[in-house]
């Protein structure tokens, strides 16, 4: 072949020198490298006693967010289900009845919302698709391994955030605008 570009860099393959032919120098070099590592600091993170810090944008276990008043944000528009390449999200939409304003933020809400964690590939497209900042992939939780396949259908009981604000997932979540405002206000107050 003629050269196709002017950037070719021919790699030289030097013939082995006498020392290299005798095996031993290279062996001792290798041994010295491994011995150096023998005494060096170990890289191991002793999971589960120690945990490795995750990045704040890590795509972990899903959560259905509540707004700052504890109402569910999800409006069952179905965009997340459409966006899901694994077709892992199912939901049934329902109309909010009178007296449920404290429970659901919009007039439509998800009566049932299920994510099949075994199907889910944690690509984050649902989070991106959600127009109501309702579904998020938490940065600090991972879907735990389990014994039975049925246990992986996560319904609303396991997906929706707890009502008490303190018990909600704190770390790493991209705050919804209201939460961000509330947080800023909170931070501003005590000073």
């Amino acid at each position, binding site marked *: 072949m003629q050269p196709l570009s002017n950037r070719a860099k021919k790699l030289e393959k030097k013939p082995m020198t006498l020392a290299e032919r005798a095996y031993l120098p290279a*062996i001792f070099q*290798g*041994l010295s*490298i*491994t*011995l150096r*590592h*023998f005494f*060096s*600091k*170990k*890289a*191991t993170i*002793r999971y589960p006693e120690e945990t490795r810090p995750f990045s704040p944008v890590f795509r972990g276990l899903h959560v259905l967010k509540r707004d700052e008043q504890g109402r569910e944000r999800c409006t069952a528009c179905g965009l997340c289900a459409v966006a899901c390449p694994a077709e892992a999200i199912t939901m049934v939409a329902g109309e909010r009845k009178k007296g449920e304003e404290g429970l659901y933020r919009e007039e439509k809400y998800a009566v049932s919302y299920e994510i099949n964690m075994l199907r889910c590939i944690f690509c984050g497209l649902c989070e991106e698709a959600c127009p109501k900042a309702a579904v998020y992939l938490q940065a600090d939780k991972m879907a735990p391994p389990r014994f039975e396949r049925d246990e992986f259908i996560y319904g609303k009981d396991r997906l929706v955030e707890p009502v008490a604000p303190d018990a909600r997932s704190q770390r790493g979540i991209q705050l919804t605008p209201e939460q961000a405002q509330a947080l800023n206000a909170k931070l501003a107050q005590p000073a």
Partner: protein
Amino acid sequence: MELPVLGWQALVILVVFGISLLIATYSTYAERVIAAFLQDRVGPDRAGPFGILQPLADAVKLFTKEEFFPAGANRALFVFGPCLAMVTALMASAVIPFGNYLQFGTTIVHLQGIEVNIGMLYVFGVVSLGVYGIMIGGWASNNKFSLLGAIRAASQNISYELAMGMALIAVLMMSGTLSLREITLQQSVPGEWHFWNIVKQPIGFIIFIVCAFAETNRTPFDLPECETELVGGYHTEYSSMKMGLYLFAEYINVFVASAVMSVLYFGGFNFPFQYELRDFLAQSQGAVTAQNIITILGVVAVFIKIFSFIFFFMWVRWTLPRFRYDQLMRLGWTILIPLAIFNILLTGGLILLGVIQ
């Protein structure tokens, strides 16, 4: 006082046997920890404190695992293979002198399983039987990978045994005896300044250690069981403790090889300044106690040497790539054997000239 002597000796034999097993058991642990440390890891640390119960867990698990006989296998030979490997490996440690002697009153106990004047020959004979265990096991498995592993093991052991034996001849030429105890004692004589054999036989030692790696089937010569090529080699079809016996036999072989190397080339239970120390102790404690203390220190010394060699075995294993089959043969036949012959000639010449003795 015939019986007590025999009784003592029986105890020593038992202890040697036990120590061999114990060291083999904990070699598996050592292998894991050393490998881990060489690789920036921490190794097993969840089975007991620092994971020291790891080998026990492995052993118990292997014992309670299902016995399995592959279809078309010769059942008798299939069981016989690992047993043979294990038995021969254990037998070899019988003649290793782990220490000089202890004196209790008039009873003198040699810290050695059995003292035979053909110790070296015995070790060689028994160790080279070990390959039959691998061959039989590999053949009886009725599996192509196992068979390939067995063939590799056989040819490898045969070719490396030659070079190993020739490397030894040079040592024997100097020592004039086959008794391991004699060889050890010759490496340090009171009143004279004697070097360990490693100084007189550096080439021989290198040949010997290379061959020891090949004989024990350790990387870079682990072709009979190399994982990436032959899955598990000769023990592919073995489950439960039969496989455990093979693994065990390998570690006992490593232990024996280390012991033989420390005895032949590194002065066995001798350690520097032992006679000075003995004389110093004799002034306050009396000659007998002083000798006993020196003997015990000698046992410590020999085990330090053995452990260093075991560490070296593992260190090399986790560092080097392995040979290809034909390259390994070429190394054995065209480099090591001529080198060993040259070493014999050189030794002979030097003895003739009186440089070494």
